């Protein structure tokens, strides 16, 4: 990563403001009854915030391909763990009684 491509304090400030707004929005969204959508909205906002942190605060946007692949690999493996173990529990609900 070369120096000139690093983000500026202004950009950091914009990001942190986005994160603050995101936090407030999550908090407010949780008080509105959206049924099944509540956790989805909450997680979607959390993911967006996390992506902002990863891309800018952690400089992944300005990093080489290897770092990007590493980050993606991490989330890929996390998803393997979560989806495959969760699928067993959800799958038990699909079982047809004899």
């Amino acid at each position: 990563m070369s120096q000139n491509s690093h983000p500026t304090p202004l950009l950091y400030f914009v990001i942190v403001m986005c994160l603050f707004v995101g936090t407030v929005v999550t908090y407010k969204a949780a008080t509105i009854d959206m049924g099944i959508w509540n956790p989805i909205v909450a997680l979607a906002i959390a993911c967006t915030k996390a992506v902002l942190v990863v891309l800018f605060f952690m400089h992944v946007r300005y990093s080489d391909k290897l770092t990007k692949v590493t980050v993606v690999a991490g989330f890929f493996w996390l998803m393997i763990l979560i989806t495959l173990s969760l699928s067993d529990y959800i799958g038990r609900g699909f079982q047809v009684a004899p």
Partner: protein
Amino acid sequence: MEQQKGASTFGMWVFLLTELMMFGGLFASYLIYRLKFYAAWEAGSSSIDVHWGFINTLVLIGSSFTMAMAVWAAQKGDKNKQVMFLIGTMILGAAFLGIKGIEYKAKYDECHIPGHIIGKAFNASGGCMADGKVTGDIAKEFMEHQAEIHKPVPEAFAKQTADQTQIFFSFYFAMTGLHAFHMVIGLGLLGWLTLRASRGEFSGQYFTPVELGGLYWHFVDIVWIFLFPLLYLINRTHG
């Protein structure tokens, strides 16, 4: 030197992958149980003070900002700003842990610590005595809450749900505890970085340790960004 720096940064990323999977094990178990014991999750989550969690989220995001600025200052070779931002990050980090402590203390007073840790047994239905008054009766709160929003539930159901919040609290403490443990380590790292920075060890050419500390700190921040909605905001629609 360039190769070594690249190696360190990449090494940190690989380490963060490990950390991610460590939290991942907890997240996966958390999600499975959340499906299974939704009512208990709701009741347990509602008994935590969401305001502290909200403030803590802002505090930690703020600390991530100061950390990013510290890396920026290090890169610029500005020693004073760098030390200032590092200290700012430490103060915010310490504030986070302090607030976490207040929350833990409240849970301790309410007998919401699962199992038999530190002398008090878990008790979520019927409440427990603290300072001469009964607190932490999740069963009662749950009944009132349900009566308000859906339909009344019988005491037996509320009691059972309250008992099941023990699993929720196991995860609450395991997840926030592991996170807080990372924060403590992070604070130690920051202290060390501040010391080195004040000695003027970092420059625009060499600031890898600050950068690595930053990566670690941001990762801890990301974990909290997920913990906040998952633990505090399960059902706040009528709180």
